[in-house]
């Protein structure tokens, strides 16, 4: 169980910190160049409008209220 806990802790840690870091000398495994169709969502994803909509939804539904 100790191992399980520790591993789980690592996962939790990784998740909690995801998105927290700015820039560092991490090694990335460079993916290939995507060869598929362009997803229309790409235009929308990350836009302030969609982000604020998703943000509002997150706090409204997934919190204890």
């Amino acid at each position, binding site marked *: 169980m100790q191992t*399980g806990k520790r*591993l789980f802790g690592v996962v939790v840690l990784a998740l909690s910190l995801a998105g927290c870091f700015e820039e560092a000398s991490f090694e990335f*495994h*460079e*993916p*290939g160049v995507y060869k598929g169709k362009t997803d229309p969502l790409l235009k929308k994803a990350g836009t302030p409008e969609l982000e604020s909509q998703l943000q509002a939804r997150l706090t*409204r*539904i997934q919190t*204890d*209220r």
Partner: protein
Amino acid sequence: MKLMKKSTATGAGGDSASLTPALFSGAPLDRRRFLRNSGLAVGGTAIASMSAPGMMKKAQASVPKPDGGEIKTVRSVCTHCSVGCGVYAEVQDGVWVGQEPAFDHPFNLGSHCAKGAALREHGHGERRLKYPMKLVGGKWQRVSWEQAIDEIGDQLLQIRETSGPDSVYWLGSAKVNNEQAYLYRKFAAMWGTNNVDHQARICHSTTVAGVANTWGYGAMTNSYNDIHNSKAILIIGGNPAEAHPVSLQHVLRAKESGAKLIVIDPRFTRTAAHSDHYVRLRPGTDVPMVWGMLWHIFENGWDDKEFIKQRVYGMDEVRKEVARWTPDEVERVTGVPEADVKKAAQLMAENRPGTFIWCMGGTQHTIGNNNTRAYCIFQLALGNMGVEGGGTNIFRGHDNVQGATDLGVLADTLPGYYGLTEGAWKHWSTVWGLDYEWVKSRFDSGSYEESEGKPAPVMTTKGIPVSRWIDGILEDKADIAQKDNLHAMFLWGHAPNSQTRGPEQKKAMEKVDLLVVVDPYPTVTAVMQDRTDNMYLLPATTQFETYGSVTASNRSLQWRDKVIEPLFESKPDHTIMYLMAKKLGFADQLFKNIQVNNDEPLIEDITREFNKGMWTIGYTGQSPERMKLHQQNWHTFNTTSLKAEGGPADGDFYGLPWPTWGTPELKHPGTPNLYDTSKPVKDGGLTFRARFGVERDGVSLLADGSYSQGSEIQDGYPEFDHALLKKLGWWDDLTDDEKALAEGKNWKTDLSGGIQRVAIKHGCAPFGNAKARCVVWNFPDPVPIHREPLYTTRRDLVEKYPTYADRKAFWRLPTRYTSIQSKDYSKDFPLILTSGRLVEYEGGGDETRSNPWLAELQQHMFAEINQADANDAGVRDGQDVWVEGPEGGRIKVKAKITLSVARGVVWTPFHFGGYFEGEDRRAKYPEGSDPYVLGEACNTVFTYGYDSVTAMQETKCSLCKIYPVV
């Protein structure tokens, strides 16, 4: 493509069941992975046979169409348990195309369990019973509704002629809405029988009887949401993580705020996995466990003496009984060491208010009523009653089992717990606008029993309970306390596999002249018998194809809107009742005050009718208009107190939890926590009910110096009637119209509601202000005591803790106790057999095993067996084993070897059906309506045994032996 250097992700492979092998290698297989191995194959077969030609409407697109009509959101309530989770159903062009989290809803805040999150499958209904069917020469034949009603009706009238109305049994349901439940009880009354009952008998009847006889009402006292306020939570005989998953949201919120969670159960459940203190007891030893805790509480002076003095009667007699339960004796009987018992008691004593939660593990015993009363007494001793965060939070089962109980789909009462007395019948006859003598004339004119030395009329005699309908068919006619055996059996929304004594049940189904199933699914009834003729299956709708009110466990009434039109040829239950009543000749009386449109009785008229009569428990203030207002304003209710803060329902508690006193015009807000004296009655406060008289042997039963806030009578008082109002000088507070109706009446029978209004105006509870009683002098065991189960492995305890004597006529039937217990079966059947629930399935599982999204997750019936017992029996994990009981029934299931049960205990889920003693009976289902997953019903093995007050079946302690299938 880039090659990578990472070292974490090697070795993945194998079947789809082994998720995250690298991360979790070495972990023992969990329940689902263990059982899912052959999943794809089973599913493949099931899916392949899904579109049986001729039986299916062309599959409708069930996803939103971009070019389709407007998508509207319908508000409903989940039908899978008593939590009452709100549902947002998205409907386009009449098709249920989406389900969104109802985050506004105060109970679930958008959350669902596996069943709730799979609700939309009800809009597909692929495995539903689609048309009325008739069994002819062993084959199912499609018939028209007209033909079915006609043929069934003719036979019923014939049976009535030859054997009397009591030879038809009307087994009802907790899965219909309040309006349908009420109508069903009234229907049985118009037919002229008390042989009407429903699943509450076999889930919480011992709770209702035990709790109501302690302090007045037999219901959950607080609410799921109120658990936020608890400092300690004790769960005994319940596994809400699987049976009421969304309730765990509230439990875990409390736990996060510091509450201690204690779980007492023979099995280490998913709920136990989240506990601070888990106690494993031997099945059937709840009374010793509770008395063992109380022993420490009394010993250490942790009891609330002021509360007991003011609000409790008879605690001294409890002290005497508790004194016998020394730590040594408790350990000898329950198997729990002193330190564990003391820790549980101390956690509850030091963390007040604490709530006490129980479910079927406590209720389904021959001494179920003793258990439930012991639980209540524990809470009284700690002063945990009538406070936020305290209470006895009894989690009811089906979505409307509370409502169906309240509305009297029971063999021993009319709606509202009025009982079956002449007065009760007169009250309801008045509400129905019918002549009492006409109603009486519907019943058998003879008498089955004596009351006060005189023959009692049949209409005042309790009927046969659900748990015993098979005996109503099988017993010798001479031994039954009614005119004749049962000759026609209606299973109107009932899973037979949820009942014990499977092989005898099969025999009963084969013997009865006429067998009728009314249900959205064929149910196990369709296949577990080997009849060849005279059986009908009538397709009813689910609650998503109709509308009306439903009562959650916390007594809140919620309104459901209709999501979709009835699928296939199914009809709503109230429409079927109308068609049947018309055929049987009492539709005019049954629907005297209820509008009927195209054979469908108007739901709102039915609500308004029961509003007019349900004064006892305050089902009078919940008009359709008020319930609909709450439904449209879910977001305005506080998620802890359930109180509307502003908005159109300002000040109301969500769902107007009963009692909601008086008429709707009185605008009573409902009662969120029963017996809470910190609030005025008009704002939802309450006292203990004066239900058992005002004194006993010279000792007052009324409260002593305790009263609800703002009460003008600052002490105990009896229940209100016209005479008391006059004596207090409050009579003239009634209007002239009220006076006309209230004269000669009491708070339960005054149809004006004036007596209730005036009592509340003066700060008083209409039902009086008394003490709760620890001694129920009219029960077999006035102070709860331990009695060994009928089938026990502990022969050494039988002499000291024997069961009851056999009875000649109990609920019209001979009932055995000691004649069973006196024989030692434990040599041949050395293991204790007990049962419980899985999160994916509900009840008998006909509905949920027909939902592929759920069925895929639990594909095999299994038994949890301790590794030591498995080794002793030579059984390996995953192997097929026989589990055989002392009455001869046996089942072939997968062995799940585990530490979740102690050595000597075998646990099985009870949701499976469709196999019988090793035989797959899938072919017997009407084509295309067989559930995806079938399995052995554990109740094929479970044995005889009935509670000494309510005739609850014993499903938690039986015996078995296991041996490998060779």
